[in-house]
Structures are given as C-alpha cells and as structure tokens.
C-alpha cells in the first residue's frame, strides 16, 4: 500500500512516497519525533522509493530512488532501501540547494556555537558526531553543513546519522538506548545502519546558529584529544575540497569562505576517546 510521509527537515520539506515495508518501518521508527504531516502546502523534494522494473520485483529484488519521476541513480538491492533513501535525500540537498554553501561535514552545536567538522578520510566524523550529540551537543547534521549565503549562519538539517561497519557496535556501546534502522549489509560502504537523532535536536531543527570554527577531526587509536592550529590558507583549501557546491557558487562561495574564516582559528583535532573529545571540544565553545 502506497504511503506518503510529509516530513519537514530543517529548511526543507520532503515528501516520501513508498509501499516498501523496510522504508515504512524505518521511517516510522527513526522519524517518530518529527512533525509528519498529512498534507503539505509546498514540497521541496518529492521522493518515491519503488521498483520500476517488473522483473526486478522478483528476480534479485531491487529498489529505485525517484525524485519526482527522475531516477538519478542505478537501482540498489532491496535490503538497502532505507539507506538508499537517506543517501538520496543527501544528494537532493547537495546538488540543488545552492542558496547554501554546502560542506561535507559533521556539524554540532553547543552554547549557541557551531563546530563544523569536514569529513576527510579517516576522520570518523559520523561516529564522532553521533557520540557528541548523545553527550550534550545538538545535532545539525552528520553529513551536510548548510551555511546560508544570506547571513552566513549554519542551518540544521537534522536527520538520522549514517554509521558503518565498526561504528555501529561502538555507538551501541556508547549511547544508552540507541535506536537503529534495519541494518543493510554489503552496501558499497560495507555494513550500514542509521541512528535515530536525539529528540531535543529534532525539536530545535529550525534554529540556526553562528559558526564558531572549523575543526578537522582524525581518529587516532589511543591518542589523547588534541587541538593543533591550522593555517587559514590550509583550512580554506580543505574546505574547498570538502564542499559540494563551491565550484558552482563561484565568487559567492569565495566571499562566503573568506568571511567565515575572518578572525577565526581552525584546528586539526586528534582523538580516540569520546569523553575526552567531548571535554576538549566543549572548551572551544565555553
């Protein structure tokens, strides 16, 4: 039975249409704190999760992700339905919302200050984000930092957190009563599951906040939490690499990053223990 879920997520409204049982179950579980409406005056992204090919309903079942009848991706195995939905939603925002400068980064907030943590390889940014938001921080996003080109504030895009492989048991151990989606195995990223976002973060999804600074995290086994200053020049270059739409925004993007870095000190951040990490990051925003 085709069901429609109209879900406001930060500044965007999504409409998810599906009869897929995995997706319906995971949506109901992970989005239970959201204001899911029956109808919406205007939908930014109308998504359908379905199987277009008749044969593929039975032979090696797969699902398609459609944004208003257009399919941007190849189909995926049915077991990965919910992960596909979440990846697809990220794609929608990152390829279309050019009224924001969009960075590939974990984004968290405390005391009215936002830390944006760009996702270089080995950063463990999603795991770090998950640990922080269940330890006193507000979740803006584990994937997409949205920086408004109008006011340069950071805007939340609060959604389930994407965890993979070892991160799943690690967070299960660290976060009491963590709620997960159906686990999807053998995806192109390995084993993937989505973690329900904290209720408080979901309630405050429409509250932007100013950027404190950029932190470039790196998980280093057994390392004590450490912040090492990085030059504005190096930070700028990494931010360009980790941005989804800097190359589209042109001068607007250049001006935005220049202004954001003005008078700011950015840091490399080494960590291994989450409590240790949390303490050090809190000092930055006190």
């Amino acid at each position, binding site marked *: 039975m085709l069901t429609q879920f109209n879900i406001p997520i930060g500044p965007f409204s999504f409409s998810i249409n599906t009869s897929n049982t995995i997706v319906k179950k995971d949506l109901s579980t992970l989005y239970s704190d959201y204001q899911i409406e029956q109808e919406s005056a205007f939908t930014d992204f109308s998504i359908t999760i379905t199987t277009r090919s008749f044969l593929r309903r039975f032979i090696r079942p797969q699902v398609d992700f459609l944004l208003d009848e257009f399919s941007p991706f190849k189909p995926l195995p049915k077991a990965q339905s919910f992960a596909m939905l979440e990846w697809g939603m990220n794609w929608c925002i990152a390829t279309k919302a050019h009224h924001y400068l969009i960075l590939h980064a974990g984004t968290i907030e405390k005391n009215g200050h936002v830390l944006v943590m760009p996702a270089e390889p080995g950063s463990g940014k999603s795991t770090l984000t998950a640990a922080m938001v269940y330890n006193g921080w507000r979740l803006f996003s584990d*994937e997409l930092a949205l920086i408004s080109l109008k006011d340069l504030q950071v805007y939340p895009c609060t959604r389930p957190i994407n965890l993979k492989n070892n991160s799943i048991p690690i967070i299960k151990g660290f976060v009491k009563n963590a709620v997960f989606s159906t686990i999807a195995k053998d995806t192109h990223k390995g084993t993937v599951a989505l973690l329900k976002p904290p209720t408080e973060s979901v309630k405050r999804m429409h509250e932007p906040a100013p950027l404190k600074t950029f932190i470039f995290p790196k998980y280093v086994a057994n390392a004590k939490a450490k912040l090492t200053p990085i030059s504005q020049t190096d930070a700028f270059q990494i931010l360009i690499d980790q941005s989804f739409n800097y190359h589209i925004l042109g001068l607007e993007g250049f001006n935005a990053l220049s202004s954001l870095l003005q008078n700011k000190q950015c840091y490399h951040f080494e960590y291994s223990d989450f409590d240790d990490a949390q303490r050090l990051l809190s000092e930055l925003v006190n």
Partner: protein
Amino acid sequence: MPLLINVLTTPSLLASLSLAQWQILLSQATASQLVGRLDYLLKLTNINPPKEVEWHLSSVTKIANKQRQQALREFKEVSKSLKKIDTKLIFLKGATYIAKNLPCSHGRTFSDIDVLVDKEHINHIEMVLKFSGWLKTEIEDYNDKYYRTWMHEIPPLTHTTRGTTLDVHHNILPSTNKNMPNVDNFNIETVIVDNVGEIYTLSDIDLCIHNAVHLFTESEFHHGLRDLSDFHLLLIHFQKTNECFVKQLIERSKDLGLFDYVRLAIRYTHLSFNTPIDKVTLAELSHQSTLIGKLQDVCFMQIFKPNHSSCRTWKYPIAQWLLYWRGHLIRMPLRLLIPHLIRKTIMRAKDFFKKEEPDTFLP
C-alpha cells in the same frame, strides 16, 4: 495546454499562480530543463515568486551561470590549444547563444560545448586536444565508431581538470541525411567576446536553421521542448530588429534545401507558444500532404510537452516511438539502421544481466 506551455506563451501568468500551481509548474519545468528559463522570465517581467519557490529557481540559475562561465573560458582555452592548426573553430548551439549573449542563453543549462572544425584536420585536432588535457569519455568501441561514422563527431571529450565536455564535429549536420548541405554553404560570422577576443559562430539566420534541422532530425526528444522554446525566443529576438527576419529565414532555408525543417519549426513554435508570425507566412507554411501532416501534428504536439505525469497522456509514448523511428530513418538508411538497433539492444540486454554496480553516491 500544460501549465508550463501557458507560462512560456504568456509569462505574465506567473504573477497569479497559487502555490499548488507553482508545485506543478516546477515539476514540469524540471522535467523539461526549463527552470532557469522561468527564472529569467520572472526577472524580465519583474515578478517575484513565492518565497518557498524562490531558491528552486535561483539555484538553477547559478548552475547555468557557472556553465556560461565555463563556456566562455573554453572559447579562449580551446582556441589557444588549437591555434597552430589551420582550421576555423565554429561554436554551435548553446555555445553560440552564449557567445552572442542571446535571451535564450539566460538560465539555460547545457551539458556539452559543440564546436565544428575542418574535416581534413580532425585527427590532428583530436591529438592536440588529448595533449591539452581532453580525454575521451569512456564509451564502448561500437559507440565510438557510431559517433565517428554516422554522427560525424569525435566521441565527447572531457577535460581532466576543468570538467567541461567538448563535442567536436566535422560536419554541421548528421551525414546520412540526403539533404545534407556542406558547412561551406553556411554563413559564418565573428563575434567579439569579452576577455576572449574573436570567435566564429553561424549567422543569426543560419543558427536558427541549424536549431530547426537538429530538432527535426532527432530521434529522442529529452530536450525537445527546451529546444523549441529556444527557437521561439530566437524568433522573437531577431524580429525585434528585423521585421523581415522570418521571411529571410524561409528563403535562406530553401536555398540550403532545408526548408522542410524550418517549416516544421515555425509551425510548432507558433502552435505551442503563439510565436508572432504574420498570417500570410503561416498560411504558406501549412502541410502539403494532409495525412502525413496530421500525423506529424499529433506526434510533435505530444512530444513538445513536458514529460511529466501532470500532463502526459496515453498518446505520449506512442508519439515517442513513432518519432524515434522517424529520427533514425532520417539519419540512417534502413539497411544500416536495423543492424545498428539490434546491436544496441544486445548491449542493453548485456547491461541488464551484469551484476549491478551502484553509481557513485554521496556518502
């Protein structure tokens, strides 16, 4: 008529749309790659869209502006790379609209830059481009041969660092068409572009003819409505400074032996968007054969509509199928078309049974 067509015909309608209508309009425009054009029409008519809708429009305009900047850069870079070769570089289609700063270039997105070069230097040009960072997009050998032999292009080239795609043609129109005039028959002009200098394009009349021929030799119409809308804006623009433009366009197309394509283009742009054309000319352009004419009308009037569930009818897939065959038969004789289509079907079937690898996603 679908909402998008009504709005393209009468842009002032944009002022009175409800949010629900905007939802449908945006869906139709997205399916037709015309969102940027809507944004341009809003600016032209000084109408503000609802705040919920505004970013959807401006985001596409930003992408179009980026592509414009890339095209301007490539005019300079490609000219520089090929300056030692004795060939004129004639930029075509969307690139021409940008070079001439035509109204239809604003908000218009495109995927490739088309350039026409001398056939005799094509191999040398391909080599020089390769050493300037232009690499062949990965395609099967069969498609490679198809491009070179029947489409008369090098397969599309992508620049390794700049990311732009270049289509290098060595004949101005698909070659198996027996009406094929040579590029030497076309009028070339120079355009001065800021920061770039002189580049070559087709003359105003000839670029309209080129648009019409491409549109009416197509077999797939993913950009059909967009291209027809381009033609509509071109006619309006050129008629502003030259009342006789359409008459001259028709005369010239007869000289080139391409009248039938231009006739179809004028007919369908007028039927779709009410493009201003004088009554005498319209009467002269009506169909000669009633049966074929009626069938063409049914098919083309279907295909020049947004491919979206809000306005698609049962006739649409039939029109698609008929025009698919029409386009192929125009470009390829039957004895070559059948083996070509069989080969393409086998390639598609092989793809279906291959183990699926997902495209690169965002994380």
